[in-house]
């Protein structure tokens, strides 16, 4: 395993703007959709970075821009120390084998007119790689590695279930042994039971090959299961990032608090008792993002300063980064929401605190899943 500090992916100040053009014979650019606006992140070798956020916050666009499926407007993307932001298509081609992608929709990610054998052989053929023992053998090994029957090479994608198709997509992504795989919501379209299997498979592959993942998801429980580090995205910005344990135990950004409070708890009593933070309003339009801190329009602790001054990312200790003028320590949260005299300051006893309780339960969700999946693993 490479040293911990080795960065497979280093993204600095990435911006992806989509021009909005007027209709007509001579279209003019009349605005910019700021899908990604100044995102910096890095992924260490053999580690997983979870990127979470609600729909439309720019997390998928970030992933696509890293692979140059969308051209970044500004910023830099370094893959294995090589800046690929402005490489031509030809220059980029050999570097493509270092980074691969697993897609969200397993029904769209496989060409319905090709056999899975030729789908999985495509990376070898396109990159001109001749694996030892030949492409056919390599394809069969890959199918076996992802838990599919190697005899099925001549079948077509329409004969497979969603989970099986996602396995085919994973086999294609690992074919060239990339250093980095961008997983764009790889389990969102799957049943919960299949989700656990796919997550376990990804984990196994990481253990075996030392591949790094940028794991994009909107499901906090899923990210908690697989990520080493988590970054929270809101409206094109990363608002908080930290190690997994730290983020789930001690969230600082009000948006992270709101997200965590929305995760259901499998205990009806705890579910009804705990405080839910419901954000008012909708996600603002990235065409015209709010001034200052982009979250201030929906933030429950926003003050005047938030409307004018853009918060910069600062380290709150142990690599816990947050971009907020008034980060919330968990003990204060009831007070923050209801005010000091509302009588609701302490919804539960301060220790362990309702938030840490919800965290425990959230953990239970994750662990239960992990356990059930593990127990099936042990069945062999």
């Amino acid at each position, binding site marked *: 395993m490479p040293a911990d500090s080795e960065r497979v992916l280093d993204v600095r100040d990435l911006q992806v703007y989509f021009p909005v053009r007027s209709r007509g014979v001579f279209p003019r650019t009349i605005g910019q959709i700021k899908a990604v606006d100044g995102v910096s992140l890095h992924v260490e070798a053999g580690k997983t970075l979870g990127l979470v956020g609600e729909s439309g916050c720019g997390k998928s666009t970030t992933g696509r821009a890293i*692979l140059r499926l969308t051209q970044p407007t500004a910023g830099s993307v370094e893959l294995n120390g090589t800046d690929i932001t402005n490489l031509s298509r030809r220059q980029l081609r050999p570097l*493509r084998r270092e980074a691969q992608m697993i*897609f969200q929709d397993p029904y769209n990610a496989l*060409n319905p*007119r090709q056999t899975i054998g030729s789908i999985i052989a495509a990376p070898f053929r396109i990159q001109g790689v001749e694996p030892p023992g030949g492409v056919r053998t390599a394809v069969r090994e890959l199918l076996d590695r992802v838990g599919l*029957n190697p*005899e099925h090479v*001549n079948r077509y994608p329409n004969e497979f279930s969603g989970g*099986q198709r996602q396995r085919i997509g994973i086999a294609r992504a690992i074919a060239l042994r990339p250093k980095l795989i961008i997983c764009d919501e790889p389990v969102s379209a799957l049943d919960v039971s299949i989700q656990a299997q796919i997550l376990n498979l990804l984990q196994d592959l990481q253990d075996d090959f030392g591949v790094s993942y940028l794991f994009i998801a909107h499901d906090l429980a899923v990210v908690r299961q697989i990520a080493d580090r988590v970054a929270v995205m809101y409206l094109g910005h990363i608002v908080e990032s930290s190690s997994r344990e730290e983020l789930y135990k001690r969230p600082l950004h009000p948006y992270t608090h709101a997200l965590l409070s929305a995760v259901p708890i499998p205990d009806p009593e705890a579910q009804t008792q705990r405080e839910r933070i419901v954000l008012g309003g909708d996600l603002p339009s990235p065409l015209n993002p709010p001034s200052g801190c982009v979250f201030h329009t929906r933030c429950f602790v926003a003050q005047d300063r938030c409307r004018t001054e853009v918060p910069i990312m600062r380290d709150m200790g142990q690599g816990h980064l947050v971009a907020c003028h008034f980060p919330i320590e968990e003990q204060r949260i009831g007070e923050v929401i209801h005010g000091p005299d509302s009588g609701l300051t302490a919804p539960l006893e301060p220790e362990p605190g309702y938030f840490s309780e919800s965290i425990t339960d959230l953990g239970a969700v994750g662990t239960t899943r992990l356990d059930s999946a593990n127990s099936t693993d042990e069945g062999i």
Partner: protein
Amino acid sequence: MSQVVETESRASEADPSDVKGRSLTQIAWGRLRRDKTFIVSTIILAFFLLAAIFAPVITGFLGVDPYSLDPDVLDPAGGKPIGPWGGASWEHPLGVEWGTGRDIFARLIYGLRISLLIAFSATILVVILGTLFGIISGYARGWVDASIGRLMDLILAFPFFLIILALSGTMTQRLTDLGVPEGNASRITYLILVLGIFGWPYLARIVRGEVLSLREREFVESAVSLGASTPRILFREILPNLWAPILVYATLLLPVYVATEAVLSFLGVGVLPPDPSFGAMLGASTQYWTLVPSYLFIPGTLLVIIVVAFNLAGDSVRDALDPKAAKR
């Protein structure tokens, strides 16, 4: 691997011998084989196609040919065929032509040859041009798409029949100058080119629309992220997904061109005597049809049968290739 995974991935393996898998093409073919309309219309079409291909063999076997004159079966006064049904006899199964005594059966299957040659060639030309322009237009977008789009608008706005009639003489001459044999060879080439050049925009629009939606599918992005070249993406990833609409359009275009060739020959732009064609035969028959109705009805009926059979076969192909169609 885990137990659950094993069961999931091997669940479909109920029949261990069935590891070949069924492609979408095979599924469509399975549907077609159970479609009676398709089978009947295909048999009819195959029959006519074989008749056209083996026309010299058939006429040789029957001892007739489309060009030789036979004054013996004509009334010396006026040239009317002797006998009922346009002079039908063992020597001339479907009768003879008024005034010349040429055998109608022989002319019919030779005419079929020319009609099908023109229809198939023009359709192939349309498929090549339409697919190429449509796929480029849809994938490139931007100014390339806009230019091809305006070119298609221009072609579609052209008064097609007027141009075909007006330019027939000069363009046929131009083709002859370019080395195409004089006479009907040049005229047939002209027809094929004109039908093809004025026909492709319709198909190109269908293909472009499909490509616009296909290029956003994630398997195309996957190919891009693997570093695939644009030709590979166009012809290996996207094109195989276009065969269904192209095939449907082509099978429905064939009967249109069989009919169009007849119309143009009827109007005198197409094949000229002594070479036979449906349109020319129908055109000639208009002078005599009150006296010899069979001369009008025989090529007319044949034309209708062929056009209807092509259309029904095309409909069946469309139904079979439609993934939303109910499974039959």
